[in-house]
């Protein structure tokens, strides 16, 4: 582990009401890395992201750049620079694409820079520029995923949490989307946690990866190593290689 972890997760427990889902999760994320979180349905990946951003009750340690993340206050976590693109995208359906993007910058005061950033998002996703006046709910699934990611970028986050951005997208579109995520990560030095089921593709883009099973981390390592180790890939991720 690196000396100064950017995000620290230690002995994290979380769940819904009485039902516990995460049973003592721990891992570090270095600044500027793309960290994949993989695992089968119901493993607790979405729950992990919800715990990180304060949507659900947690026990354990969560620190961003040395500062404890506030509990149960997602709006405060967001103001610390964590942007969560939730499962299902969280689109403001009746609002226009441009309005959705502007809302991403809600906590910012620098209006001129916000206007520039909207243009930058349109450069990443040109189709959104064409559709900027359209109700976001009328866009295709992939386009809505672009809106969700673009909206997250608008806050100039230090950490982006992406929950299964590939859901419902064609493989080719998913690859394009991941390329944009990589570009953002490289150009803006934004740290990314990428939750996915599509292990094969995700490992291609991630630096490190953690595999979750029934609420526990069962495997951690460099993404390239995990991908290269055919036995590991078969055992944990169902990848034939």
């Amino acid at each position, binding site marked *: 582990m690196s000396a100064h972890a950017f995000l620290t997760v230690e002995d994290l427990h979380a769940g819904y009401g009485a039902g516990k889902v995460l049973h003592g999760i721990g891992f570090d994320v270095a600044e500027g890395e793309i960290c994949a979180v993989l695992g089968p349905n119901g493993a607790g990946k979405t729950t992990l992201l919800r715990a990180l*951003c304060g*949507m659900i009750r947690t026990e354990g340690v969560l620190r961003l750049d040395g500062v404890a993340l506030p509990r149960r206050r*997602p*709006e*405060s976590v*967001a*103001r610390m620079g964590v*942007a*969560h693109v*939730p499962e299902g995208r*969280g*689109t*403001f*359906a*009746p*609002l*226009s694409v441009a*309005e959705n993007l*502007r*809302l*991403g910058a*809600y*906590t910012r005061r620098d209006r001129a820079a916000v206007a520039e950033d909207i243009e930058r998002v349109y450069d990443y996703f040109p189709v959104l520029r064409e559709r900027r006046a*359209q*109700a976001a*709910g*009328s866009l295709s699934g992939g386009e809505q995923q672009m809106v969700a990611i673009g*909206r997250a970028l608008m*806050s100039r986050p230090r950490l982006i949490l992406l929950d299964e951005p590939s859901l419902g997208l064609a493989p080719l579109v998913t690859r394009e989307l991941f390329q944009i995520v990589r570009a953002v990560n490289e150009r803006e030095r934004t740290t990314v946690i990428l939750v996915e089921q599509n292990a094969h593709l995700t490992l291609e883009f991630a630096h490190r990866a953690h595999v979750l099973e029934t609420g526990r981390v069962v495997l951690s390592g460099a993404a390239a190593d995990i991908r290269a180790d055919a036995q590991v890939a078969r055992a944990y991720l169902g990848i034939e290689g």
Partner: protein
Amino acid sequence: MADFIQQLVEGLGAGAIYASLALALVLIYRFTGIVNFAQGEMAMFATFIAWQLVQAGVPFWLALGATLAIAFGGGMLIERVVIRPVEGAPELALVIVTLGLFILVNAAAGWIWSFLIKDFPSPFPGGALDAGGVHLSYSTLGVLGVVAVVMGLLYILFRYTKIGLAMRAVASNPASARLLGIRVSGVLALGWGLAALVGAVSGVLVAPVLFLEPTMMGGVLIYAFAAATLGGFDSPVGAVVGGLVVGIAETLAGAYVGVIGSDLKIGVPLAVIIGVLLFRPQGLFGRAAVERA
């Protein structure tokens, strides 16, 4: 013909008042999913405050400004104290809470100001313009003007300001709004404050037409419900159009349908409510799959 247009104008004047209360109902419904049965009583209470200020010698328009500010603060306070603790409760429980609020506010007004009727000064001069045989009284014109200004300000708020955009985001998807750093609980309180303010406008407008007393808004609330239902209950534009339509329907029915007359007029909003629920439950402007393309 002139007589018909005359009735139409009267109907618009009445409708504008229903529209403003309906707008208040719709604002709260959109933000919290709550049907606020106490909206009329909150408006009545605010109107009493205006009356009290005028009695104390405060000039009318100043008293009105102060009243709207108090109504705004009162609405936020009610959200904090009464609504917040039951947030997320089942729908029926919320209905009971707002009905309880109705009784509480009504009783409080009676206790403070008694149930005797009071004269409320009209903010508009008497007299009328004469336009080709149609009498446009200054008070009707004034009511229409005030409601138009309120609508315009709300439109500007929601369409062109950052906080208005945040309010629409919260109405659309509160969980998602929180993830962007929007303080949702603050926005909800703001929604209640705004609704109380808009409702207070309807109270102040209706008081000179009726008399000021604690039960003043009972009938108006039913018309406002009819207007909101007709408009689709979650559409501000719908509430306004619904209010005007209900006002016109009521006036025309009272004037031209012999059996209805002025006594049975109150049946009109009920007929509207039932008709809409039967034939077009989502109302004229209710949310379809996609809004505002």
